[in-house]
Structures are given as structure tokens and as C-alpha cells.
């Protein structure tokens, strides 16, 4: 997609800021509960932000490194959440069973939709992923035995090997943090591997990749499935965090939110997606406390980021650092 060529998405793994920033970020997140103290509400809030960050990291894998802009990514969250919810409705409350099912379901959905979607390019890819997202949304609203439009309440959180780990806010927080760290490391390893080089090459020049003997389609499909599985992981955690599943998890606005988190932080960096999710959701919370009409402030903020800060927040920080070094 030619329009993406000017975006600064070239991974510079090994460059100092790409090591220091993620280390600082994860250390901060690990120390956060200690800093917050007894405020369970805040711990719960940040736990949910990390859950969305997992999905955003997965989305950045395909958007930032493959220029595959998925506008239906909320569907994967929804599928993971529904897997947990439906199993719970049948009395299966064990993460050791529910999590693999959630991952398998979302990966399978990614495989089936990816086979079709990856035939298209650019804007058409955006639209066809939107179409599949909408189909998942309407399927969920027709699941009458599982609540339909009204959604499905989960009466008991999943246990881990029989232990009610997720009932404790702090424990759940560290489970989410662990999942986020694992997702980040997985994607980072993938991107830097031979697989990742082919995948990135397919973004730059698919014809050349094909001519040196790689079929870009297969690499893109695998990346799309990994991305979908991370969405499923986020969905599984989200269902347990909210004790509730509903079609609203899959609405196209949610998919838009995820994309904005990725762009907001700075795409093609993975930890940018985490920063994006943090800043986006915290800013939303803070502005909402300040005024009921917080969207009137938040909207122009998004416009300002797009107009003045292409490359997202990290892009701005990097430009500032560069200009200071020059002085």
C-alpha cells in the first residue's frame, strides 16, 4: 500500500530507545499496584487497560509490520470472550480448558477470514475485515440461548487448576501483566525472526518477495492468525474481568478504538501499542471525570495528533529527543 510508505514504521530493534522504553514500561506496570496501594478500583482499571493493550499489540503486529489494516479486530476479542462465556454457561469454569478453546476459536476465525481477506489489498482489506467483524457481531446478537443482544452474565470467574486466582484483583492484575509481557515478547521475537523479515518484506515489495521464492500470502496468513489469537486471549481475560459478555465487544467502534490505540502510541513498535492503549484509555477516564462532554475535548486531541504528530506519541518524543541532541 503506497500510502503507508512514508510512515516511520521501520523497526529499529536494538536501538537504545527500543530497549529502554519497554523495560521502563513493564517495570512501571509491575510496580504500579504497590504505588496505588489499596485502591482495588484503580488496580482493576489498569488491569483492563492491559487487556486491551494485549489486543493492540497483536493488531500492531499486522498493521505496523505488514500494513494489513484490520478494521474488524474486535471480533477476535468477542470470540475469545464468548468462548469463555459459553463454556461458563455450561458449567466449565477452568482456565486450563477455557483459554485453549478461546485461543483455538479465535485462531480458526482468523484462518477462515484471512484466507478470503488477504486476497484483497489496502482499503479493500480494511473493508473486508470490517465486513467479517460485522458478521461476527450479528452472529453474536442472534445467539439467543446465550443472551442474544443483551449479552451473557458469567457467574463465576475461571479458576486456574482449581484455584480461584482471578477473584483477587491484584492476582488478576499480574496475570494480565504476564500475558501482556508474553504477547509483547512473542511479537517482538516473531518480527525479528526470519519469518518476520519475510513478513516485513512482503509489505515493502510483495513481487520481489515472491520472486526470491517466498509466498507472501502464507506468511501474512500466519501473522494474521497470531494477531487473531492475541485478540482471543484479550477477550478471554476481558470476559473474566467484567463477568459479562455481550455483542457490544465486537462493534465496529471497538475495532476503531483498537486501531486508534495503535496509531496513537506509534505503530510498528509493539510497545507503542501498549503506550497508546494506556494513554488513550487513561485520557478518556480523566477527561470523563472533568466534564460530561469529554468527547468535545478528546475529538480535537485526536485531530491534533493526526495533523501535528504523525508517528504517534513515540514519534513526537523521538523528534523532540533528536532536536535536543542537535542543539
Amino acid at each position, binding site marked *: 500500500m503506497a500510502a503507508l510508505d512514508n*510512515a516511520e514504521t521501520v523497526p529499529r530493534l536494538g536501538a537504545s530507545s527500543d530497549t529502554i522504553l519497554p523495560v521502563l514500561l513493564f517495570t512501571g506496570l509491575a510496580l504500579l499496584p504497590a504505588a496505588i496501594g489499596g485502591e482495588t478500583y484503580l488496580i482493576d482499571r489498569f488491569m483492563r487497560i492491559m487487556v486491551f493493550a494485549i489486543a493492540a499489540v497483536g493488531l500492531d503486529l499486522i498493521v505496523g509490520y505488514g500494513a494489513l489494516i484490520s478494521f474488524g479486530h474486535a471480533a477476535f476479542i468477542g470470540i475469545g470472550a464468548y468462548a469463555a462465556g459459553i463454556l461458563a454457561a455450561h458449567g466449565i469454569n477452568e482456565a486450563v480448558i477455557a483459554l485453549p478453546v478461546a485461543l483455538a476459536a479465535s485462531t480458526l476465525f482468523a484462518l477462515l477470514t484471512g484466507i*478470503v481477506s488477504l486476497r484483497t489489498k489496502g482499503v*479493500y482489506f480494511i473493508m473486508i475485515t470490517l465486513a467479517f467483524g*460485522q458478521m461476527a457481531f450479528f452472529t453474536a446478537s442472534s445467539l*439467543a440461548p446465550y443472551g*442474544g443482544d443483551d449479552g451473557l452474565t458469567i457467574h463465576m470467574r475461571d479458576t486456574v487448576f482449581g484455584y480461584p486466582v482471578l477473584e483477587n484483583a491484584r492476582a488478576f492484575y499480574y496475570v494480565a501483566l504476564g500475558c501482556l509481557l508474553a504477547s509483547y515478547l512473542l511479537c517482538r521475537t516473531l518480527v525479528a525472526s526470519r519469518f518476520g523479515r519475510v513478513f516485513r518484506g512482503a509489505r515493502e515489495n510483495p513481487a520481489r518477495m515472491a520472486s526470491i521464492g517466498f509466498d507472501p500470502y502464507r506468511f501474512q496468513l500466519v501473522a494474521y492468525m497470531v494477531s487473531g489469537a492475541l485478540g482471543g486471549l484479550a477477550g478471554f481475560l476481558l470476559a473474566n474481568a467484567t463477568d459479562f459478555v455481550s455483542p457490544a465487544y465486537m462493534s465496529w467502534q471497538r475495532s*476503531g478504538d483498537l486501531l486508534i490505540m495503535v496509531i496513537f502510541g506509534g505503530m510498528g513498535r509493539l510497545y507503542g501499542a501498549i503506550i497508546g492503549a494506556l494513554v488513550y484509555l487513561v485520557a478518556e477516564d480523566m477527561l470523563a471525570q472533568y466534564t460530561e462532554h469529554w468527547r468535545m475535548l478528546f475529538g480535537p486531541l*485526536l*485531530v491534533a495528533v493526526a*495533523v501535528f504528530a504523525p508517528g504517534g506519541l513515540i514519534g513526537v518524543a523521538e523528534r523532540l529527543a533528536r532536536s535536543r541532541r542537535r542543539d
Partner: protein
Amino acid sequence: MSTTLLIVQILNGLQLGVLLFLIAAGLTLVFGVMDFINLAHGVQYMLGAYFAVMFYGVTGNFFAALVLALGAALAFGLALEFVVFRHLYDRNHLDQVIATFGVILFLNEGVKVVWGASPLSLPIPEPLAGSVALMPGLSYPVWRLVIIGSGLATAVLLYGLIRFTRAGMLVRAGATDAAMVSALGVDIRRLFMIVFGFGTMLAGFAGVMIAPILSVEPGMGDTVLIVAFVVIVIGGIGSIRGAFLAAMLVGLVDTLGRSFAVDILRLFMAPSPARTVGPAIASMLIYLLMAVVLYIRPAGLFPARGR
């Protein structure tokens, strides 16, 4: 499933189709000519409806309100173009998405602040209220026929403008290769502004026309926007002809699907699951249609660009 019901639903489908066309026409041109993804196109439609309600309150005359609302929609669109969109034409699509999404958030909340969150309504102009008998036993609201008629007239007008005027020729050339048009000495920025203003006005027009039969509320443009995107993708980005045919197709498929899906499913399903599955399948149909079209023709039915 009686013939009368079928005819009524076909007319409803056409009415939805022309409405979608009015919105999609501007969207596909802006997208095709400027390569600009304008998610805020849906709020232009919403603003058209709100402006109509406001000016109707001032003048008490629907037609005066229509003219004033069109002018206001145009002015507002041009102002937005000047303040925000102009800076984003040569950016990548993601920057455009995030900025226009911000505009949506701002304006949806803005109309809540200005006009309140509760739905408003606009009366149907007096001589056009009521129904007319099309056939014995088949009466149909006049206003819906007016929407269909004015939409078709707009389509013909647009076709004429694009086919036979110099500006139309430039628009067609721009949709095929904007850089080349610019290289040939055409002021592409001015062309963009004209196309943008015109598209905005069409969306506003759709909003005004639909306001008497729909409630005017914040967020009313969001759902329409997504369906309009489906239309332009099926039709092929940048193609007015494609947008028109796809709008009719989507309007008919959606309306007929919603009214007859349950009945059709009952032919080979038990009534109770048919009642729950039917509406879901009906809502899904247009997306299914888009996926199938893109699978067979990855650039839509009538792609404007030769790529």
C-alpha cells in the same frame, strides 16, 4: 408473502438505496479523487438533518429550511476542509482515519451540547404528507416517493455534470490519476475543494430529506457511514455509476432481507429458530454481499482506477 407487501418493500428498498447513493456519491468521489478516507462524512449527513430542524424552527417553512440547510451544510463542510482535512490529503490513510474519527467524536458531542441529547423531529411538509394509492389496495407515503424521485433526479444531474462538463471531466481524470491531472496544470487543490463541498452538500441533502421520517439524533450518521462504505467498496471506489448500482443493490438486499428472511428460513427450519436466526442473517446480508463481491472482484464492480 403477498404481492402488495413485496411492492411496498421494493419501494422501501429503493428509498433506502437513493438515500445511500446521496451519501455514497460524495464519499466515493472524495475517496476516489483525493484518496482521502473521510469517516466524518456521516456526521455531515447528521448535520444536514439538524440544520433542517433548526431552520424549520426559524422559518416555519420546510423548503426555506431545505435551502438554508444545504447552504449551511456546504459552508460547514468547506470550513472543516479548510481547518482540518486540507492538512491530511498527502498523509497516509491511518492519519486520516484518526483525524476524521476525532471530528466525529467532536461533532456527535457538539450536537448534544447545542441541540440536546433527545431525538428531534421534523414534520413532513403539508402538501406532501399522507399517502397515495398506487394500486387498488396499495397506498404508499408520498414523502417516500418524493425521496426516491429527488434521489433519482440528483443521480441524473450528477451523471450529467460528471459526463458533460469540464469540471466533471477533471473529476473523472482525477479519480483515474490525480497526480497526472495536477502535472497537466490543473489546480488540484481547488478541484478537491469543489468535490469536497459538493459531496458534503449531497450528504446534507440526504439528511434533510430523511429527517421527516427518522428521528434526528446524535450518532445517526455512524451506522449510515459504515453502510455507505460498503456501497462504495462494492461499487468500486471513485465510480459514481458503481456507487449508484451498489446503493440500489444494498438498499434492496437489506430491506427485502429484513422483511422476508424469517419467512424464507421457515421454509426449511422450525419457526422458533427461524425467528431468532432470521434477523441476524438479514443484518449480515449486505456484509456477506460485500465479502462475496470482493472475493470475486477484489477492486469492486466498477473500479475507477486502472490498478
